[in-house]
């Protein structure tokens, strides 16, 4: 038997095994029960519009505030990490290692409940504690992404800017950082999506009717309706937000590669 014939036979065999396996699984599943438990149409309809107008909205609010905060924090930390002043470098390194090494849930609990109790400081605003905690965590990840971006800008750019008489600060602001950001847009979008998903952890700090985010909303539905459909609906809403973003980034990367 030639090599090609053999590989063809193997491929056919794999197809057949897969089809048999799927058929067996399909037989084993009680489809009506599954549909009732996960895709109950009436319950699914009941989720709207609050799953969008309240739950998804809150998820996006937490994401927007948290992401903006983490961007600012990340930029500051990245610049500190690259600084010639040693205490700045040390502080940034320690910060980054700490918050990248802790589970986000732990940090959220610490910032939202631990610190206020220990210090007596109150965090004002309904969205603040959760968004702040997310910003603190993701600021650490952003810092590394942004730093990589800044370091990816060719050295010659800074040299040219300084040769024209620009100060380090002006060169950074007008020449280096704009280019760095263009470079890091794909990884940053991934951070954005990760942050969006981690808004699901915020409910550990307590939710009011105003601040109920998507996962909490889905979970509440499951408990009180004894049906998993609300969670499936919440999941689909998450995907509706994250998948276009991932696709969009892939497009951006493709276009950037062509332009080069």
């Amino acid at each position, binding site marked *: 038997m030639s090599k090609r014939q053999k590989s063809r036979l193997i491929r056919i065999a794999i197809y057949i095994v897969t089809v048999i396996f799927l058929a067996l699984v399909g037989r084993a599943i009680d489809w009506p029960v599954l549909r009732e438990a996960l895709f109950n149409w009436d319950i699914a309809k009941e989720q709207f519009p609050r799953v969008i107008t309240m739950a998804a909205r809150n998820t996006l609010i937490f994401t927007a505030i948290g992401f903006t905060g983490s961007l600012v924090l990340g930029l500051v930390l990245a610049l500190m990490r690259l600084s010639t002043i040693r205490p700045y470098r040390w502080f940034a390194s320690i910060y980054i290692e700490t918050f990248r090494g802790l589970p986000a849930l732990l940090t959220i*609990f610490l910032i939202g*409940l*631990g610190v*206020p*109790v220990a210090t*007596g400081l*109150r*965090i004002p605003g309904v969205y603040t*504690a959760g968004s702040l905690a997310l910003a603190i965590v993701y600021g650490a990840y952003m810092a590394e992404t942004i730093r990589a971006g800044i370091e990816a800008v060719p050295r010659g750019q800074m040299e040219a800017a300084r040769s024209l008489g620009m100060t380090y600060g002006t060169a950074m602001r007008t020449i280096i950082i704009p280019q760095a950001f263009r470079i890091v847009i794909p990884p940053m979008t991934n951070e954005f999506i990760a942050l969006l998903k981690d808004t699901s952890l915020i*409910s*550990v*700090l*307590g*939710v*009011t*009717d105003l601040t109920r985010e998507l996962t909490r909303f889905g*979970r*509440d539905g*499951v*408990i*009180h309706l*004894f049906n998993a459909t609300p969670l499936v609906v919440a999941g689909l809403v998450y995907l509706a937000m994250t998948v276009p973003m991932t696709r969009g980034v892939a497009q951006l990367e493709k276009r950037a590669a062509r332009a080069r």
Partner: protein
Amino acid sequence: MKRLRGVLLLAVVITLVATACAKGASGDYKLVKADTLTVCTDAPYEPFEYQDANGNWTGFDMDLISKIADGLGLKLEVTIQPFDGIWLQPQAGACDLVVSAMTITPDRSAAALFSDPYFDADQSLLIRKSDEGTLTSLADMAGKTIGVQTGTTGEIYAKDNAPADATLKSFDEPAAMFLALQSGDIDGILQDFPVNLDRANQDPTNFVVTEKFATGEQYGFATSNDRTALIDAINSELKKLRDNGGYDEVFQKYFPGG
């Protein structure tokens, strides 16, 4: 060769019989683990279920169910779950019984099978000691934030009875609630009286129970609807303990003079 075959056959038969018997022993109760009563609980929830410094399970619920398990000749094993939806866990196969200071409600009874009631509970409002002068009742919580645990009867009571402009904040677990009260994030906690009282007694400088609401609610153990044999057995043990003073013994330990 023939003798070997004979031995093998015997071994197989013995194994089959033994398995059948074992199944028979736990088969009635449909236990998740043979010879063991596996319970789900949301802990720590003093004074009902918590672990002491050595990690041993203690508390009113735990001591009581321990006695019941002994009476049934079963070992006791404890798993921890979040409270919200915990009454669905036996059906999901995570445990045999929910032992978690759980109030018997019509809603929950639709999805789970409750034992006879084993404790009379009330709801209550816990506040910071510093607010003792101003917040004397639930009505005083107007414009304030009340913490409740998701899925509890306390949450339902608060929704039904709190002032219209009070904000309700729902938490997954009591620990976060107590911290939030202390930090000023919320102004009061509405939950079971024994739990609030326990916290106030442990930390009288910071917390105080300001109002008690007689709701007539009662705790029960819960299991899946099909474990009728288990519930019957538990109910009969419970009755035994009430009759022979075992129940009072546990009660006095945690609620002296109550």
